[in-house]
């Protein structure tokens, strides 16, 4: 009567075997490694790069444990940190600035495990050490900037169209244009409506003045805010690349925040410095007259473009990046080629008009300056005089490139200022301590429970302990599989889940004892015990699950790690304490029809 059908045994066996396989990588530990990531779009992580890395290491007589190639990078694993650091210096020197060479830790698990995506648990910053920043984007500043440039554009539009107005002023989120008469206003309104699709207009008469009130449409406001977040994300990503961090996390959180996590980074000062840096953009003329020599002639400077070609550029600046309001990828209206559309503000438009009128046929270079070093983003030919502040760059560009260039044009600087509103830094020694502590307390707690259960419930106690062990195995396997972030509270969660999971087995064992005391045969008692206890186990686990889910929804950072473990632990404990322990009981007692005594203390 206490027999499982074969498929159930198989299911349990397969689950446990899978659990074991996915838990395995956690036992191999990690080796110091270097990771080489190409920085530019036209450089790929390929076998050629792998070969280069291998050769460079061989030349320096460094022998890595393994070199591997994945989608984005080449990794080399070493025995000790000394050779890791040496390799980093050598590779950085050999590969130059087009590649980031980052220090990393790689799992030492055998290749076949990595091939089936069995990776060790993903440790949070409090366990591996590193920096966590939460940055708040100043959205008001982003909107202010947009309105400010809109109002100056309105002024120049009205002036160009010879429409008489007596003033344009901005107050908070509203721009007011004053006209002398109703006729001018209606003419102005028509003109402005055509040009500024993101604004909404309304008329008002006040003290003999004819006012036109404009505000940003809600959808335009939303677009500006979203664009600001995107732009800041891209900028941050570019900057973090420079820090040489192996696995940075840069994510949007909520409507106006960005999380930056830099595992392993100790130098927080430098990190903050780089994240907060301002980059500038300059437009200058290319000097094509002079042939390329070793030294740049007087009045010119040499810059490299993104593909590494050198360009001679005049020193005088036509335009700076502040004058660029927006840059979007798109298509040329006549040739349908991919293009980048740039909007300049009114001052920029006027300057640009003059500059282009005088330099038709020449090339201009758009240069991004960061850390005092310039890089040419693009260098198009000026075909004609460009007025109105709408600039289009097209020709020999793929859609991908158009997107990149427009991102870079925008991403040179931050769209809106950001402020660090939360910082958590954990040193590597504390991280290592946290792991040992978490591990020790779980170990000791588990042993104490195991001894007690076996003494108190004898055979059934032993079965419960095995089930608890299966629970731990499955929980670790699940955490490894999902690559959920394991934090110190998460480790506490593992310990706590184990302490709580034993509840199910205690419930079952107590029930069986009670049924036995009522004089039922052992087989019937086992059956009834599991049956009766299951309802209670389900109810009590669901209530805990409710708490876990709420914690997950509202918790942040480390708390979330705890919640994930709690929820997963409840699921695995249901499986192991009910199914696994029952299967064991069935295997031990289920086959004996005339069972007279069970060992339950």
């Amino acid at each position, binding site marked *: 009567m206490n027999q499982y059908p074969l498929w159930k045994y198989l299911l349990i066996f397969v689950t446990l075997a899978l659990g074991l396989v996915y838990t395995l990588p956690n036992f191999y530990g990690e080796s110091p490694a270097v990771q080489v990531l190409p920085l530019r779009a036209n450089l790929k992580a390929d076998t050629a790069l792998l070969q280069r890395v291998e050769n460079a290491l061989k030349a320096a007589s460094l022998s890595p444990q393994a070199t591997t190639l994945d989608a984005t990078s080449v990794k080399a694993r070493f025995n000790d940190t000394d050779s890791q650091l040496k390799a980093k210096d050598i590779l950085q020197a050999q590969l130059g600035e087009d590649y980031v060479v980052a220090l990393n830790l790689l799992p030492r698990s055998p290749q076949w495990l990595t091939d089936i995506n069995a990776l060790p648990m993903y440790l949070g910053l409090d366990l591996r050490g590193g920096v966590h920043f939460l940055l708040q984007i100043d959205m008001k500043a982003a909107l202010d900037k947009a309105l400010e440039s809109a109002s100056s554009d309105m002024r120049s539009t009205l002036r160009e169209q010879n429409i008489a107005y007596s003033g344009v002023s901005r107050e908070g989120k509203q721009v007011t244009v004053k006209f002398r008469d109703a006729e001018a206003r209606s003419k102005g309104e028509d003109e402005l409506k055509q040009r500024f699709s993101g604004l909404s207009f309304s008329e008002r008469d006040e003290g003999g003045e004819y006012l036109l009130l404009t505000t940003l449409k809600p959808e335009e406001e939303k677009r500006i805010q979203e664009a600001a977040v995107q732009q800041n994300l891209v900028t941050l990503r570019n900057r973090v690349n420079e820090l040489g961090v192996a696995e940075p996390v840069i994510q949007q959180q909520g409507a106006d925040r960005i999380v930056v996590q830099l595992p392993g980074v100790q130098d927080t000062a430098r990190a903050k410095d780089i994240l907060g840096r301002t980059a500038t953009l300059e437009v200058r003329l290319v000097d094509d007259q002079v042939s390329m020599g070793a030294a740049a002639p007087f009045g010119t400077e040499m810059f490299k473009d993104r593909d590494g070609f050198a360009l001679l550029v005049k020193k005088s600046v036509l335009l700076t990046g502040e004058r660029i309001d927006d840059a979007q990828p798109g298509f040329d209206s006549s040739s349908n080629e991919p293009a980048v559309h740039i909007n300049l503000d009114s001052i920029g438009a006027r300057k640009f008009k003059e500059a282009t009128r005088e330099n038709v046929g020449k090339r201009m270079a758009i240069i991004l300056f960061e850390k005092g070093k310039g890089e040419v983003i693009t260098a198009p030919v000026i075909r004609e005089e460009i007025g109105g502040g709408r600039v289009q760059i097209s020709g020999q560009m793929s859609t991908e490139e158009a997107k990149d260039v427009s991102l870079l044009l925008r991403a040179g600087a931050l769209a809106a200022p950001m402020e660090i509103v939360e910082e958590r830094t954990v040193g590597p020694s504390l991280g290592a301590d946290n792991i040992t502590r978490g591990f020790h307390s779980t170990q000791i707690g588990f042993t104490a429970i195991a001894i007690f259960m076996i003494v108190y419930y004898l055979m059934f106690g032993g079965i419960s302990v095995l089930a608890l062990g299966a629970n731990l195995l499955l929980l670790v396997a699940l955490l490894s599989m999902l690559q959920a972030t394991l934090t110190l509270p998460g480790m*506490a969660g593992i310990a706590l889940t184990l302490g709580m999971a034993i509840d199910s087995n205690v419930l079952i064992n107590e029930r069986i004892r009670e049924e036995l005391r009522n004089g039922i045969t052992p087989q019937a008692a086992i059956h009834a015990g599991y049956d009766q206890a299951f309802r209670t186990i389900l109810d009590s686990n669901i209530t805990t699950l409710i708490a876990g889910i709420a914690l997950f929804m509202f918790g*942040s950072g480390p708390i979330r790690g705890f919640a994930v473990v709690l929820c997963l632990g409840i699921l695995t404990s249901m499986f192991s304490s009910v199914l696994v322990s029952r299967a064991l009981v069935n295997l031990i007692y289920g086959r004996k029809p005339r069972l007279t005594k069970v060992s339950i203390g």
Partner: protein
Amino acid sequence: MEFFRIKHDIPFMSYGRYTTAISLVTFLLAVFFLATRGLNLGVDFTGGSVMEFHYAQPADLNQVRGQLAGIGLKDAQAQNFGSSRDVLIQVPLKQNTSGAKLSEQVLDTLRQHDASVEMRRVEFVGPQVGKELVENGAMALLLVSLGIAGYLWLRFEWKFGVAAIIANLHDVVIILGFFSFFQWEFSLSVLAAVLAVLGYSVNESVVVFDRIRENFRKMRKAEVAEIIDNAITRTMSRTIITHGCTQMMVTAMLLLGGETLHYFALALTIGILFSIYSSVLVASPILMLLGVTREDFIKPEKTAEQALP
């Protein structure tokens, strides 16, 4: 081995008056301390900076305080953390200084006096984030309470949901009362522990309630009080053993988990102790008080019978 071989049911319900009085007194005391002393909220909630530094030799706290005052941080607190070589510095939020820059400034200053200083941990929480964490914490507490009450209502009866939630909020308030009385630091991880206790101690009530429901079906002639007494007595062994096991884990964390987990484990310990008490001696008397009857459970069967032709 068996600890609890109880022949007769213990008449818990007849002690109802005393236990309710005890609960009420502890509860009111907890509320009193919360009202007068408040919680010693950690940086997570108030905003501010916490820095942990490690010295190669035992650190002189007075010197450290002097060094901090030297850079204008007079309101900074410096204390030992775990060992005499570890120093924890807390700086409350100030209007004009950027918290993000503070940690470097402090590290530089300490390094000038002792080059062996190693930065172990920095936490900076801005005022807005702190406020949100408080709001989210309160929201989570509310949601957990409602969710659990709702589930128990569905699964049992509304009286059970109400009784369990009152019993468990009683636990939560008492944990908070302890933190208020001893002025232990209330951090995010303590909040997590409190919420976990909420889920965990409902567990306890559910087990008893389950028995009560079962007894209503089995013990057709018994009084309500007898039914509850029997349910509690029968589950007592399991209650003590389960909590004992969980407490073994928590004790291991309390002793070996280090400073970071200390208060987390402490909150769990108080929560576990009181949840044993409350599920037995608070939830059940409330259930009686709400007038739970056999009809609450037998009704569905009758309607089923009537529905038959």
